[in-house]
């Protein structure tokens, strides 16, 4: 499709968010704000107290007898399995429970208290099984099987489960000859890290309401990043036709991946199918939010890296054991992403990677902002830091020498597109005053600086698609219809900006159709993977170009001019030849009358566009090699200047700096807002956060015991920069940036701690007591 090449004025400007007025006045509607009237039922879930057990018997009779209880469902009612990449999950456990908190039964009643009471009255008999709590042990032949039937599960063709084990995916990359390369290395570093599970912590907990009509059609209202994926997966699993299932998705109060795919949304649907006519609302408590849904899976990573005497990287061996939890329907692709990105943004000729997705009896690992990458880079960023030191090279120089660049062949054999990573490193190094040893603010403090780089590609099926359509209105405005969700990142604003810029309208003349509704909205795979600005942005751009073309052709015919002489500026069609002008008001719907009342030209303008990458190839299952594993990589760097209090071990961040190559910053303020928020989420996960699991039971499922960063934790100085090396197939050259800013954070902070203390911790969170004790053990406290 031909799209005009010049850079419109609105691109690179920062118009205000289109969703913001309702959000500051309380008018914005989130899922729980929708009123359903008196017919509404409330659903609660009976959950497993055991990490691993067979279900021998479920007795619901006492619960059924409780007045006010309307429906109870168990796994017996729905034996079918659901899952995005590997169908390994039941809506309610059938014969076996695999983690503490797994849903065993669902109850709908006239109010939440009765539903909760009914759950307590459901009696479940279990036969306990030996649990698995460690991913390395889980992958061993000694471990009991958590999914003995894994071999029968339906699976995407790029995922490689190993039936008869707990390994639900094994991604291998083999490039060059690692074993031979070690001999040529002048320095080698070997290290292991452990990154614990953390929670997404959206401030809005999960919520979904489902209703079945008399004719069997289902409507689901959900706080959702993925209305289309949910329609598809839930409908298929429950034997409903996709078009008979409608998903309505209002604003999302924070997603970060936990509201992608299907997590809890199938439960209210399963209940509502047996409660025709009643909307059934299921709303998670904060405690449920912490461990019964997706968490970020844990990782044990073993790295060996080596370089020659000049500091050129020669080899990497990377073995990752992902603690995928009780179900890895989404997680298998996280471990795949960890595999194909396993070198980080480094140019390494010899690589051997094994990325294992391992079932454990832990909470289910799912997509989390930049999935796999924060975990992976925690290891890579820190071993590279040590390798630089070991070979005696300045760490920034080492990063610049070895970071991947356009034209390099990466770990999967893909030729890298042009990137601005070198410039990102420079900006960050300058920002933290790298190379200048600075004094701590007092004698009982230690000061240090650290820097790390990262990359991430959108992790998705090769053919994840986007679509959009744009309707012109009588008043000359345009309504943009998209299927991508506004989860806070600014997707609606950027869609409006792209549409306005492409058609030739002012920003205020764009309306975004909402809420998303699979019955009206155009298809979008999912709002994940930092893919919307790029993929949905392309669809919007094409739709806008289509609308513009229709308008110009109509006017050209009316004026008897050439389309090439016409333009649309601020909602006015102008001719550069005749200097005629005509407002878009009315004409884009009613058309233009011919002269002398001889009929009409044109008609309602509706532009449509869709985009799907067509060039992503499969990879060899044994070597992980193929022409193009992913669509593109966003790359960048981050650095910290910190002080550590010797008396408490507390880390204070004096300065945090990050820079990413975003291709083109369509809306610079939104880009910066993503970098700040992402970096802060990274800092929070690095310093505070851990799901503490004992025998599979989460010990800290509340905000009191699971602390996230608050206003007092914000670094005094935070700087964000973007670099713009355009993406060849991005709208105006744009690439995504939503997830990346938190991916190098743990490593960069770990490097800063090392610089300050000489201590390398095995993993986050870098809690004061942990840092303090490590300093004490190392004898650096006098």
């Amino acid at each position, binding site marked *: 499709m031909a799209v005009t090449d010049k850079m419109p004025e609105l691109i690179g400007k920062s118009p205000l968010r289109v969703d913001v007025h309702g959000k500051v006045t309380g008018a914005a509607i*989130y899922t729980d704000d929708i009123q359903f009237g008196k017919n509404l039922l409330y659903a609660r879930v009976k959950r497993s107290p055991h990490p691993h057990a067979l279900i021998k018997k479920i007795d619901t009779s006492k619960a059924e007898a409780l007045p006010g209880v309307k429906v109870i469902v168990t796994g017996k009612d729905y034996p079918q399995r659901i899952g995005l990449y590997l169908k390994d999950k039941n809506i309610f456990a059938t014969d076996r429970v695999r983690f503490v908190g797994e849903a065993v039964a669902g109850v709908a009643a006239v109010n939440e208290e009765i539903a909760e009471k009914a759950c307590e009255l459901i009696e479940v008999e279990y036969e306990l099984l030996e649990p698995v709590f460690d991913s390395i042990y889980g992958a061993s032949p000694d471990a009991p099987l958590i999914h003995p039937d894994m071999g029968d599960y339906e699976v995407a063709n790029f995922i490689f489960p190993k039936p008869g084990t707990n390994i639900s995916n094994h991604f291998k990359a083999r490039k060059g000859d690692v074993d031979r390369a070690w001999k040529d290395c002048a320095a080698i570093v070997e290290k292991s890290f452990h990154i614990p599970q953390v929670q997404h912590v959206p401030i809005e907990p999960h919520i979904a309401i489902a209703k079945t009509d008399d004719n069997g059609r289902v409507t689901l209202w959900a706080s959702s990043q993925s209305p289309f994926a949910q329609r598809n997966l839930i409908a298929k699993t429950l034997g409903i036709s996709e078009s008979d299932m409608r998903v309505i998705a209002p604003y999302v109060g924070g997603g970060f991946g936990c509201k992608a795919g299907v997590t809890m949304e199938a439960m209210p649907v399963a209940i509502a199918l047996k409660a025709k006519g009643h909307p059934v609302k299921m709303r998670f408590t904060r405690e449920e939010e912490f461990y019964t849904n997706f968490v970020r899976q844990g990782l044990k990573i073993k790295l060996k890296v080596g370089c020659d005497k000049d500091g050129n990287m020669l080899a990497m061996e990377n073995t990752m054991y992902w603690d995928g939890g009780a179900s890895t329907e989404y997680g298998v692709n996280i471990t795949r992403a960890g595999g194909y990105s396993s070198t980080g943004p480094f140019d390494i000729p010899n690589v051997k990677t094994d990325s294992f997705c391992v079932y454990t009896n832990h909470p289910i690992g799912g997509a989390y902002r930049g999935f796999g990458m924060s975990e992976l880079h925690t290891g890579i960023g820190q071993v590279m830091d040590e390798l630089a030191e070991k070979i005696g090279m300045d760490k920034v120089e080492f990063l610049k020498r070895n970071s991947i660049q356009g034209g390099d062949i990466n770990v999967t054999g893909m030729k890298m597109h042009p990137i601005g990573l070198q410039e990102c490193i420079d900006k960050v190094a300058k920002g933290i005053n790298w190379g200048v040893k600075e004094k701590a603010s007092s004698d009982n403090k230690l000061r240090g600086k650290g820097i790390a780089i990262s990359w991430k590609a959108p992790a998705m099926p090769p053919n994840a698609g986007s679509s959009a359509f744009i309707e012109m209105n009588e008043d000359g405005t345009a309504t943009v219809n998209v299927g991508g969700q506004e989860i806070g990142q600014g997707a609606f604003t950027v869609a409006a900006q792209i549409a306005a810029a492409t058609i030739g309208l002012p920003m205020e003349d764009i309306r975004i159709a909402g809420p998303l509704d699979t019955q009206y909205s155009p298809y979008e795979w999912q709002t994940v993977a930092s893919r919307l600005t790029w993929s949905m942005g392309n669809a919007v751009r094409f739709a806008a170009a289509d609308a513009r073309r229709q308008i110009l052709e109509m006017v050209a015919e009316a004026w008897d001019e050439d389309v090439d002489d016409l333009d649309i500026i601020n909602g006015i069609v102008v001719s550069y030849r005749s200097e005629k002008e005509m407002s878009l008001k009315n004409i884009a719907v009613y058309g233009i009358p011919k002269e002398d009342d001889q009929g009409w030209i044109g008609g309602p303008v509706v532009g449509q566009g869709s985009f799907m990458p067509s060039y992503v190839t499969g990879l060899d299952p044994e070597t992980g090699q193929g022409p193009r594993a992913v669509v593109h990589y966003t790359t960048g760097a981050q650095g910290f200047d910190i002080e550590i209090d010797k008396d408490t071990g507390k880390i204070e961040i004096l300065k945090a700096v990050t820079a990413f190559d975003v291709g083109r910053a369509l809306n610079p303020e939104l880009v910066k807002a993503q970098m700040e928020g992402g970096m802060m989420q990274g800092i929070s996960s690095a310093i505070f956060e851990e799901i503490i699991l004992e025998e599979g039971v989460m010990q800290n499922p509340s905000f009191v015991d699971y602390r996230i960063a608050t206003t007092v934790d914000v670094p005094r100085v935070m700087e964000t920069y973007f670099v713009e090396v355009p993406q060849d197939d991005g709208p105006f050259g744009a690439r995504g940036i939503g997830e990346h800013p938190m991916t190098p954070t743990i490593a960069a902070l770990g490097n800063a701690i090392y610089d300050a203390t000489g201590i390398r911790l095995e993993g986050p969170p870098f809690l004061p007591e942990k840092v303090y004790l490590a300093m004490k053990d190392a004898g650096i406290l006098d």
Partner: protein
Amino acid sequence: MISYHQITLKVNGETEVVNVPANMTLLVMLREEMGLTGVKNGCAAGECGACTVLMNGEPVNSCMVLAAECDGAEVITVEGLSHNGQLIKLQEMLIAKGGVQCGFCTPGMLISAFALLKRNPDPSENEIREALVGNLCRCTGYVRIIDAVKASVEK
């Protein structure tokens, strides 16, 4: 059986008479009985600040207050900040500085900041941070929220 209480209170300037069950929280009353859904529920345990409202001029977590205790009280929610479509400066600055992303923390954040500026019209950055410490935000990293409050200070 749960007992009901009839209470009279002022919400966003309007006098309301409501019959509330003894165990109903102010949060649930505002959202479900009065349709003031701008007040958000993020934890129902007094730990996130999303449900913050002004009660007799003080910011409170409405999930921790029983509606029955609000007889005679004056309550202001996010819906009561602007008048006749005219945003207050805090709202305008939050927009201008880009301090809103998903928006779920925003109503509570605005109320806490509003209460701060009422009792301390010229807060230092530390005072701003302290005043907002009970309002969790997972999206913004707080930077632009703090900036917005600073920019709202009438000099």
